[in-house]
């Protein structure tokens, strides 16, 4: 009896954690085979790492990037109008900062990621003393604007509703600002044929994500609907789009659509490409969301009905939050795929980042042998953004407690 009490009362400590050397000995050199594997792997890492570093810093010729940073960023966008791109980016940075200040939590991660992205851009090898200086100052300025936004966002008079309105207005205003209006004046029209580079890649990706997500959710709900017409319509769209390659959809949206519409209703080239990508991504998002809907148990729906929620409230408050949370990794995977698929817009003559890389390659005979450098650079930019997205996805999962609640 007393010994039991003694054991109950004693608060045993967990075993002390291993020191670094002990950890290495136990995990990497615990027997002959593992020791050999460890040594071989380290040697391989060293050889590959050394080769990469030597190539990047001493062998590679980065002149095409060094001399054309703005081409890679905005394509042929007129240089005297480039401030409009700058203002748009400042606006996004500012609102991200305000959102961080207002909501903290996950928004902090997003703000940090954006700032990290800017820092990466300031490190790019770009040339010309003045050009390089303004280029770097601009991105550092964006980091500062994020922080200013944060300071404003922490003030109590900044309510969540205002921040949301700010985002909505900005997202509508940015394309208008970039395109402009009137032949002359302060903000003349810059035709989308002049747009290009990372700007177009990001516009297609962000626009595609923001539009395809709600459409995808609606299609998924439609496919599960009890109304036969909505169900058949949603299923037909999803299956038709999923059965066709994205290239085909881009062709159809950019060429065939124009043939059917009256000439005075000419939709912009870039918008047509965006619509094609949105439709494609929405169909895949719908299937991902459908998987999440299936994961919500019947008991949840019964409990919602039993407390008196109607069908709409049950879907909005009970089913969707649980369904979407369950499929964040799949949806973000779909968005990363969409981001990389923006390169396919090349076939409808959109000057996105990869196409710009090709143009730069062909712009100078000396560059023709530097295709490796150019494509590595483009690939690196794609990798950085894709990785930031998957990093954000994991942060979002942790913040929402996927798998723990």
């Amino acid at each position: 009896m007393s010994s039991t009490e003694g054991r109950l009362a004693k608060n045993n400590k967990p075993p002390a954690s291993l020191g670094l050397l002990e950890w290495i000995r136990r995990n990497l050199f615990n027997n002959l085979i593992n020791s050999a594997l460890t040594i071989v792997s380290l040697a391989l890492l060293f050889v590959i790492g050394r080769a990469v570093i030597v190539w990047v810093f001493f062998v590679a010729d980065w002149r095409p990037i060094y001399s054309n940073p703005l081409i890679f960023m905005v394509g042929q966008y007129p240089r005297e109008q480039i401030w409009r791109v700058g203002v748009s980016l400042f606006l996004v940075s500012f609102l991200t900062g305000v959102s961080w200040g207002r909501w903290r939590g996950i928004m902090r991660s997003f703000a940090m990621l954006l700032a990290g992205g800017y820092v990466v851009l300031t490190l790019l090898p770009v040339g010309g003393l003045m050009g390089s200086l303004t280029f770097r100052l601009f991105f550092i300025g964006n980091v500062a604007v994020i922080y200013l936004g944060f300071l404003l966002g922490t003030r109590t008079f900044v309510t969540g509703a205002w921040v949301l309105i700010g985002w909505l207005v900005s997202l509508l205003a940015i394309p208008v600002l970039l395109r402009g209006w009137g032949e002359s004046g302060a903000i003349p029209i810059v035709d989308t044929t002049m747009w290009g580079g990372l700007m177009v890649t990001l516009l297609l990706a962000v626009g595609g994500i923001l539009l395809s997500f709600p459409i995808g959710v609606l299609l998924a709900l439609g496919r599960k609907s009890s109304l036969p017409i909505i169900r058949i319509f949603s299923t037909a769209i999803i299956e038709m789009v999923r059965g066709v390659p994205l290239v085909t959809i881009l062709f159809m949206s950019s060429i065939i659509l124009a043939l059917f519409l009256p000439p005075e209703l000419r939709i912009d080239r870039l918008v047509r490409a965006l619509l094609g990508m949105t439709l494609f991504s929405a169909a895949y998002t719908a299937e991902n969301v459908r998987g999440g809907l299936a994961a919500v148990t019947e008991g949840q729906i019964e409990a919602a009905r039993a407390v008196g929620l109607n069908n709409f409230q049950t879907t909005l408050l009970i089913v969707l939050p649980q369904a979407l949370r369950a499929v964040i990794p799949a949806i973000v995977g779909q968005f990363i795929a969409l981001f990389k698929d923006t390169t396919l817009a090349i076939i409808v003559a959109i000057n996105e980042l990869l196409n710009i890389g090709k143009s730069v390659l062909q712009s100078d005979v000396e560059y023709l042998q530097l295709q490796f450098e150019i494509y590595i650079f483009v690939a690196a930019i794609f990798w950085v953004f894709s990785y930031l997205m998957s990093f954000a996805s994991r942060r979002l999962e942790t913040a929402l407690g996927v798998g723990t609640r």
Partner: protein
Amino acid sequence: MSETIILCKDVNKWFGNFQALKGVDMEVEKGEVIVIFGPSGSGKSTFIRTINRLEEHQQGTIIVDGIELTHDVRNIAAIRSEIGMVFQQFNLFPHLSVLQNITLAPIWVRKWPKEKAEEVARQLLERVGIPEQAEKFPANLSGGQQQRVAIARALAMQPKIMLFDEPTSALDPEMIKEVLDVMVELAKSGMTMLVVTHEMGFARAVADRMFFFDEGLVVESGTPDDIFKNPKEDRTKLFLSQILTH
């Protein structure tokens, strides 16, 4: 003079070709505590689920608080906000905190302001004995605590009737009592309750009447005294001997 709050007449229900309810009659008066028991698959859960129309009956009449259950969605909505339900598997909303679980329906269905809903929710958590758990999420609570939150969530709509579908069957033995204590307190406060359970101690303590279901029929009904001391049907005797002796 007592008033009838639930009236079921000749209720029939099929799942495909299988007849789950075969003409069930029941009349419940306001403030009565009814215990429904019987072997699994006897239709007892199906029956109480027809009362708030989680299951649709195909023949017969169900009238709750003067409203007949038909296909009219307004009637169903009206009845559901009068009836609270507690499930065997709790069915708390895992993405919402305890407080949000309880305030959700009052805010969205009753259109109460958030402050009022939260005040009522905290009083209810006090009543079920777990005021300190308000900010936690369901996954961080024990089964008994989750079921008590589920009871508070149902009570938040200020229902006239509470349905319990095997509320203690999914609980560890040491947690059954904490849930039954809450139910006993609720019964003594005058709530009309229909409870599907095999907790015969609970039935003895607070039930006004008991109904024994088997194969979709009410085999026998009566006061706990009648059922325990003087069961008329052989099937009732057999079933009681099985659940009372182990």
